[in-house]
């Protein structure tokens, strides 16, 4: 049914990057996330799986406070990145989001040139000292997102003119360009064809070397292929969290087993 997780997926580092405790999220009266505790490791790909509406995207958006932009949304409990509470009033959500990059479900390049799309974050945060500096940042971000060779001759063409898979890699490059420490991906391949998906997955695996990557996915094969840790959400609860190999081969919870074998979903 799914690829057996490879042995080399297991990593030695166990530094905790993000830790959430007693996290609750409410949309108005709806209790969307119920008491979630999770420790996400650095330089690891963590996959959130679960049926639609189970709260995995909501929880992901808590990690960079994107839920702040929704009026009726309330977050309780504490979420720490590098030991610092990100919901502390002293924390500037804008700076937090620079540190925690995000890639969305649908590719959403800005209606600007490819170059300006990538340079957007670095310009806002003043990461480049000079024009040539910025050129370097753009080039290395595009290289890391494995799209440089395809776009290097048309950096001034609009980003919206690229194909879907290229657009999504452009968005990943855009997120990478601000030098985040954590990269959140909300179903990054759901709008892509299998070839583009393979490219993005390969890319995620490479990004793991520098970042803590959290990916929400509906595809269990994808979770098995790219992640080292997997968390299974169901009806707003974090049901099970552990090494990907273990979740997929030897789930401890009945609900997890039902889901990965396709009985609930």
């Amino acid at each position, binding site marked *: 049914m799914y690829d057996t997780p490879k042995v080399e997926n297991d990593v030695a580092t166990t530094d905790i990057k993000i830790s959430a405790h007693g996290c609750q999220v409410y949309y108005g009266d709806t209790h969307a996330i119920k008491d979630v505790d999770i420790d996400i490791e650095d330089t690891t790909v963590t996959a959130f799986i679960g049926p639609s509406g189970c709260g995995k995207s909501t929880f992901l958006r808590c990690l960079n406070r994107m839920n702040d932009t929704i*009026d009726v949304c309330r977050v309780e409990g504490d979420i720490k990145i590098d030991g610092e509470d990100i919901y502390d009033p002293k924390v500037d959500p804008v700076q*937090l989001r*620079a*540190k925690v990059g995000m890639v969305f479900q649908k590719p*959403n390049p*800005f209606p600007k040139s490819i170059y300006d799309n990538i340079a*957007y974050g670095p310009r*806002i945060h003043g990461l480049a000292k000079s024009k040539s500096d910025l050129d370097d940042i753009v080039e290395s971000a595009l290289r890391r997102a494995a799209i440089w060779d395809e776009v290097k001759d048309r950096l001034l063409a609009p980003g919206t003119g690229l194909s879907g898979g290229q657009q999504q890699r452009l968005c990943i490059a*855009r*997120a990478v360009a601000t030098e985040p420490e954590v990269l959140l991906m909300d179903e990054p391949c759901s709008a892509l064809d299998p070839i583009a998906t393979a490219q993005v997955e390969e890319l995620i695996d490479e990004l793991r070397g520098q970042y803590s990557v959290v990916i929400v996915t509906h595809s269990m094969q994808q979770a098995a292929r790219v992640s080292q840790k997997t968390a299974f959400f169901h009806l707003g609860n974090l049901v099970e969290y552990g090494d990907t190999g273990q979740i997929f081969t030897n789930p401890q919870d009945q609900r997890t087993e039902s889901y990965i074998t396709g009985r609930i979903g």
Partner: protein
Amino acid sequence: MPVLWLVLIVLVMAVAGYMLGRARALKSAGGDSRDLHSLPSYYGANVTIMTLVPAVGILIVWLLVQPILIDRTISSTVPAEAISDSMTRGLFMSDVRRIADGLDLAVTEGAMGRDEADNIRAEFTDIRDRLGNLGVALGSDVGPEVLRAAQRYRTMSSAGNLLMTLAVLAAAGVGFTISYMATGKNFRARNVVEKVIRYLLIFAATIAILTTIGILLSLVFNTIEFFRLYPAEDFFLGLTWSPSFGGGSELGILPLLWGTLYISIIALLVAVPIGLFAAIFLSEYASSTVRSFAKPMIEVLAGIPTIVYGLFALLTVGPLLMRVFGDDGIGIMQAGTAVMTAGLVMGIMLIPFVSSLSDDIINAVPQSMRDGSLGLGATRSETVKQVVLPAALPGIVGAILLAASRAIGETMIVVLGAGAAARLSMNPFDAMTTVTAKIVSQLTGDADFASPEALVAFALGMTLFVITLGLNVFALYIVRKYREQYE
């Protein structure tokens, strides 16, 4: 038969047709509507339409064409010498019509017998007096030719009306019979109704377009007439506007155009920043409660009649500006009516126009754009400035150009706020006037309609029309060209 009765009869036939058609269709299917091709109401509607549409169509065309035909026939039979020198043929015919109406009235009121009205002779009776007693005022004594023409007019009208009644009833009857006979369970009534609805919609669209063309043509003919009397280069290049109905007037459009542009520019300088910022606040920053309250409040401004804005300019803004820039203050303003007064008030008038359109356009920018920008650590204002506004720009430019054509066409605020003096000046505190305000002043009053001083209004209107049309086309072009920048 009066037209009202005719319409009522046709309507009754149509309603009856609906019920009969529906019943016949149901009967042909043995009472089971599932055996019908269409729903029973479609069969009814089909009969109604076939009864109503041809009959009403004939009625409308007949009512439009008959007076023209009768006019033409009678007018051609009246000898030229019967029309006195002081009268044109048009005036003669309007006298004829009025007497004919008066005779009709006399017959219905019972003041005259039917035969008397047909045979009465101007040589023996004072028609003017007798009709005057019935409340029909005539400008002069009725001559025999006029009376005879009027009587012929009446005869032809009543014959025409009888024919019309017959034709309309026949059309309704034929339509009814044909459609009723065609009704049966295999008749595709639904498709017929669908087709009729399509033509109805096409008809509505055509009316709108034809009206525009009609307005344009009425302007064009008068404008051509004007340029026959007054040289075009003096009109377009003249620097002086001083119409005098005694003759020898200078009708240069440039001072008026300058006034129009100056006031519009000031208005846009007020309206665009305020309107745009209000729109950004409403769509990007305001909570939904504030928005649901503030948006209608701003749009209330759009509901105020422009004459009220004019009063506001005259009574409030003008004196206020006088206090600062007038003789007591800086001393560059002579009177309360000035370009600045009108421009400021017109700007306020345009705020809801700009803000409402821009708000819609900004809201149309996909949320994913904002998420992408915020997710990269941009603040809200950075997101607005660098992502939302560039994405919405074509639409906003379109909104501004539409506001500009509103400003150019505005009249009442100018009349009350900017004064009536046509002059070329750079000082925004001078009184100036615009094209629209001058159109009003040239056409009101007792001016001879054939003089260049009155006809110039049409040339002004035409110029204005071309300018605003150009702006609108340009706005549409901009909007369309850049629309698909985001999905």
